[in-house]
């Protein structure tokens, strides 16, 4: 573990800005040959931006990257692949209807002189790769028939077949069982011994402590520190991850919290979430904190009628309710601002007016005829009250900025005067100005006695806005915190699975 290693990849002063957001700020990083280098940080810290720059998908705005001391230009994904940098994303890219051997060699099939695939060499080479990964799979099996874990291994195999020197892995264990994880780690260790560097991006501190040689912590686009695994404890890593002062995005006003408006008991859906129980009271802002994929959105979608739970009860104002579809939920006064505003929240090619009134028209109509005057008035009221910047009501929504688009979605639901308002990652990809406006809206709603659920993976946001926070990890509730005892470390740990209810 202590032999001297060369620097294989050096990142110097790399920055990347997106409209309204500085994703990476003058980042310096070096990767040693054959090391397992973990990169950790909260959502939005810049991990995925860094990965995408290294794999050629994004272009950096500033800085230089050196491979074996030679500066390189990563202008496309194929550039990165040619230079030996492979990236394995969470979304698998194997072709299910091709066999393992073909999947291993997508992009560099061995050909023979007759311009046909040299099948003998293909299957021989495939066997070699499979041996390297200690996989007991036949190269003739269709990839679609393999387990997700094995499919992931094939992706790694593909990187090996491309003679990758650096393999970036994004949350590789998210769909693996413990046993499969061990196999993966075995493969990683083997690759590391062979001199291949692994950049391991993950939230899971347990695993990072187990597998990494060095750990780099990112925060708000900066590099906080790079430490050797033995030199930092999990607690210290967490502190580095979130150690900023919590800016006050706004001042949380005193709100009178009264009776329970939403009660969820024993909600379960196989493989998604298990035994979820919590309450939301009038005027209260309940936060659901956890990693992406922990099941928070699914819980919200179940309450909203998009998904159906197999077990459990939902009661509103003390009465048991059956929610079979979204129309039922809306009737019960539940509204959901979905996670992906472009895909789920808006019809992008249509106007602001259309989008805002899409749900409200069910109310402001007589035998189906829409009262267009009321529709316009309602829309204009919201444009004012939410400060939505749009040249007109007829403006196509896709032309608005992210923050204003989100406000249109919020206006759409606010017009229904919800009793229970769920917001799923409402400030994702939105500039700071719009963020605080949205927090103000949440505050106002709370004062009006609406029960609010806020799903977020940004700790400062959720700690600033909520009265209570419950943490979700792998589909289960792990902890509950009252505002007085909000502690960023404990909340973060609970969301990572440490600290069971």
């Amino acid at each position, binding site marked *: 573990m202590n032999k001297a290693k060369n620097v294989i990849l050096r990142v110097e002063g790399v920055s990347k800005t997106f409209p309204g957001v500085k994703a990476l700020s003058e980042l310096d990083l070096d990767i040693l040959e054959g090391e397992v280098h973990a990169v950790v940080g909260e959502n939005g810290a810049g991990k995925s931006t860094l990965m995408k720059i290294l794999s050629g998908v994004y272009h950096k705005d500033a800085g230089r990257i050196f491979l074996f001391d030679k500066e390189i230009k990563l202008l496309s*994904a*194929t550039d990165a*692949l040619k230079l030996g940098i492979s990236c394995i994303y969470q979304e698998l*890219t*194997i*072709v*299910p*209807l*091709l066999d393992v051997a*073909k999947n291993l060699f*997508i*992009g560099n*099939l061995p*050909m023979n002189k007759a*311009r*046909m*695939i040299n*099948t003998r060499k293909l299957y021989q080479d495939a066997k070699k790769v499979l041996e390297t990964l200690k996989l007991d799979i036949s190269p003739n099996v269709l990839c679609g028939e393999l387990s997700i874990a094995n499919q992931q291994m094939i992706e790694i195999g593909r990187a090996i077949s491309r003679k990758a020197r650096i393999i970036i892995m994004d949350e590789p264990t998210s769909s693996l069982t413990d046993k499969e994880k061990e196999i993966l780690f075995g493969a990683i260790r083997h690759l590391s011994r062979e001199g291949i560097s692994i950049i391991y991006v993950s939230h899971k501190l347990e695993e990072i402590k187990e597998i990494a040689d060095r750990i780099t912590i990112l925060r708000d686009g900066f590099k906080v520190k790079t430490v050797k695994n033995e030199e930092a404890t999990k607690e210290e890593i967490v502190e580095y991850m979130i150690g900023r002062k919590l800016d006050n995005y706004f001042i949380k006003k005193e709100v009178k919290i009264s009776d329970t408006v939403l009660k969820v008991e024993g909600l379960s859906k196989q493989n998604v979430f298990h035994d979820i129980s919590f309450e939301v009271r009038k005027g209260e802002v309940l936060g659901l904190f956890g990693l992406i994929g922990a099941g928070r959105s699914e819980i919200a979608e179940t309450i909203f009628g998009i998904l159906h739970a197999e077990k459990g009860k939902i009661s509103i104002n003390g009465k048991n309710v059956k929610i079979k579809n979204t129309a039922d939920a809306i009737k019960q006064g539940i509204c959901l601002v979905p996670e992906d505003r472009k895909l789920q929240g808006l019809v992008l090619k249509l106007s602001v007016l259309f989008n805002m009134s899409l749900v409200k028209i069910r109310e402001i109509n007589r035998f189906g005829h829409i009262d267009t005057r009321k529709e316009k008035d309602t829309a204009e009221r919201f444009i004012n009250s939410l400060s939505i910047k749009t040249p007109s009501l007829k403006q196509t929504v896709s032309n608005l900025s992210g923050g204003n688009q989100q406000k249109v979605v919020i206006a759409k639901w606010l017009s229904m005067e919800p009793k229970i308002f769920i917001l799923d990652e409402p400030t994702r990809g939105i500039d700071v100005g719009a963020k605080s406006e949205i927090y103000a809206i949440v505050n106002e709603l709370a004062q009006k006695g609406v029960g609010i659920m806020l799903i977020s993976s940004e700790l400062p946001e959720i700690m600033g806005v909520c009265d209570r926070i419950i943490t979700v990890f792998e589909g289960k509730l792990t902890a509950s915190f009252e505002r007085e005892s909000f502690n960023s470390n404990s909340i973060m740990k609970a969301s990572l699975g440490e600290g069971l209810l």
Partner: protein
Amino acid sequence: MPKLLGKFLRDYNSLVLCLAMLIISSIVIPNFISSMNMINILVETSIIGIMAIGMTFLLLIGLFDMSIGNQVSLVSLVVALTINFGIFPSIILSIIAGMLIGAINGFITTKLKINAFIVTFAMLGILKGLNLIISDGKSIFIGNDAFGKIFTLNLLGIPIVVVIFIIMALVAELILRYTKTGFEIYVVGGNIETAKLSGVNTFYVTMFCFAVSSFCVAIATILLTSRVNTATAVLGEKYTLLVITACVIGGVKFNGGYGNIFNTFFGVLAMQLVNNIMYMTNTSGYVQSLINGMILLIVLSVDKFATIRRSSVLT
């Protein structure tokens, strides 16, 4: 054991269906296994089968050509018009004509980034007009004895149509399994992002598939035309639906097909057996077309095959 049986049924469903139809046929129709009848069925099956081979390539990448019925008519008309240059030249010219249409379809689909369905739908209209203009709405009698003999050729007793089908099926299987292009077809059909990232030329792949499809249509048409020694503007009208039904029965799925020519062949055979039963039992012609349409819908339901987003265009 039951799991294996289930898998066997799924992989070879059309073979099973075929055997079932054979059994039903021999019960319902007296003298079913008379060689004349079986040969007719095989011939008709092979013609549709040849076209289905080509269509499979398109389906594998998630596309479809609605104009093939009219391509059939066009090719037959080109044969009729050029027969005076000689059989061989006329065959070559008609194949080129057919493939040109396929190339145009492919080009518009990829370069203008338009939904393949609507492009080929528009082409359907264009060809309809073109065919009527060329033929002036009349049948053109070719009357070339040598040309008409082509259809009657056979190899060891097996009609040439069937032989050509078998050869083409094998070649197609070869291409799909052992060449780089065949491999790229599966990649594009399976996961287009992966395809682009791995440097696959999606334009080439699309053009290739459209060209193959039109090539197959042309070959089948030449054989068909030889049989009747006549060309008309409406010769091919029924084939679009028949070919798509054939592919659906054969289990080809949009995007990365479970594309298997073997399956398609037995699927078509099963379909023809059904048609034959109806013909032999004197079922009215209208019921026959009804059944053909219903077969399509039934297989769709059973297969959930057509669960693809409407605008599956390669962009």
